[in-house]
């Protein structure tokens, strides 16, 4: 088992701030699998056009998620994003 820190919110699933929780998952778990698990618990409706999915700050694109293997200590961010500057 490995531990992945999940940071979720910024407007997703009615969570305005960014919640942090540590999750124990099987070795070899991929980003998409953990996304499915996390989001199943909190919401079933996501507008993916404005969601950042990142591992340790590095954005994980739509097509990379099913192949990206998480490792122990990774931080997975799933947050709603807005433009700004």
């Amino acid at each position, binding site marked *: 088992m490995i531990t992945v820190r999940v940071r979720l919110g910024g407007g997703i699933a009615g969570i305005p701030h960014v919640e942090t929780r540590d999750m124990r998952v099987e070795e070899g778990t991929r980003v998409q699998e953990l996304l499915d698990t996390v989001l199943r618990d909190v919401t079933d409706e996501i507008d993916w056009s404005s969601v950042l999915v*990142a591992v340790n700050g590095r954005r994980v*694109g739509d097509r990379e998620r099913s192949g990206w293997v998480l490792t122990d200590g990774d931080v997975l961010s799933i*947050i709603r994003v*807005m*433009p*700004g500057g």
Partner: protein
Amino acid sequence: MRTIAGDTLYVNLTEGRSWREPVDPDLVRSYLGGRGISARYLWDLLRPGVDPLGPDNPLIFGAGLLSGTAAPSSGRTTVTCRSPATGWYLKTSGGGHFGAEMKFAGYGHLVVLGRAEHPVYLWIDDDRVEIRDARHLWGKDVRETDLAVKRELGDEDIQVAVIGPAGENRVVFASVMFSVYNAAGRGGAGAVMGAKNLKAIAVRGSGVVRPAKPARFHEVALAARESLLADSGAAGLAMYGTSGSLNLVNEVRALASYNFQRSHLDDVYTITGQYLREKGYLKRTVACFGCVIGCHRYSEVQQGPFAGTYTGGPEYETFCALGSGCGTLDTEAVIKANELANILGMDTISAGSVIQWAMESYERGAITRADLDGRELRWGDTEAITDLLQKIARREGFGDVLADGVKRAAERVGGESYKWAVHAKGLEQSRVDTRSAKAYALAFAVNPRGADHLHTETFAEFGVSPEARALIAKITGDEKYANPYCNEKRAEIVRWHEDCYAVTDALGFCAFATTALYGITPAIMAEAFSAATGYDVSEEEIMLAGRRIVTLEKCFNVREGATREDDILPWRLMNEVNPDRPEPDAINSREELDRMLDEYYGLHGWSLETSWPTRDTLEHVGLPGVADELEKMGRIG
């Protein structure tokens, strides 16, 4: 009826006279308007080497070409001069309604020359121009001055550009404030205005700006509006403003905190636009002229020690500069600091940056309580932040040192304090950690005015919207380059954004409509320009005009002596790894920057050795006369 470009109004404060001249149509074709024509005026009017705070530094206000029309989000006004902060080229722009009012009065540009003997303000009432005594206004803050001028002139609906005490005292990051809370903030245009003894410019216009092809222009404006509103980020920007993006920047380890010693904090909710709205600090949202988004917010504190505070903002940059950068996430304290910076007339980015530098200097022992009039200065000390803002604006105590900007402050304090003076070319860096945003890094290094984002906003590299990813794919050929940690293809990304941003500014569009949201494309801008002027201009031609503007601004600095050595990033970012992303690429190394610069200069057709444009390049972009002048000086690439 007013022409689309308007006339140019010249005011010579030394001689106490003004006159107007029509704009040469060739200038409009070549430089479009606003920022572009201002760049040309500055090139032609300014003698190299003049003192930025002397009477010979022209101060040019340029309304966007489309300001005052139905084009959406087209209310930006550019202020152009030689910067007292950097000594280099300065263009700084603000929103609000000032530029549109200039156009209604019949002027596209206002060129202020010389220096008045005593404080004055300008009153531009259509054709009538008066230079009026302002001695009774000197010392008043921005809000007080705006109100006093409107009362004196008996019209609450006029538009006023104002400087506060910071501009009067020549703080090198003093801003020009439009409509009270819209800042042309960066680079010290407010100090130039103060040095001219010009406290304010009031404008009232009664005309209508008429495009050359009104029916076609109306169609294009409507299409632009629909395109902008269809962008996937439009609703979020309208709902939460620029500070709605703070979570994103924090998650990708680019949130400049503790003077760039941190790039990620556990929870930044209290300094986000979401928090302002959810907790009732957001008093109202405000749209600049013609804007269909309305991202500007006014915030209010109703209770506690800062009760009664009311101000425009805080924007993203302000929350970082006066919040996380200074080690505080106290919403109300940042709103208070923002109010002070606005009414004192100071750029929040630079003001926050010098305070952060002082905090770190105190922590490291480079300055002591004796330097700080007997007080301590620790991270997160919100009372110290508000106290220092006032001292800077009035040049009291250590505020006098900070008022000259972080570069000069570090030179005065000495030791190793230059290492945490986060600036380039003398301009305090905008609040994005470029070790986690490589296109921003290159853009900041080559920006003629110094390290900031309002010359080339490469937000698309974050790749967080379908539109952003599509744009990166269009520029580079592959969406995979929508990755801020990647240092490949950054030159292509930067150059495209430079061209687009220059066109955006010249037409008066807001950059949020073109390079943060992407609804107003270069193709739409070309159509709008064509319908407005009657010239038939393609997307490629208008982007070439953008490059002409960018290149001329570069040449301004070359004429003043700039070389490749000046295209650099702050010491800290080039020598210290981003502590919240301890990976090998989390630094703006010399090698990486050099490689990106080589690619960038190569794309432009500039010398890799000196960064100077070649004659071929200058002729290609339509600047043969500039090539002649630089060649005579021996500064051709």
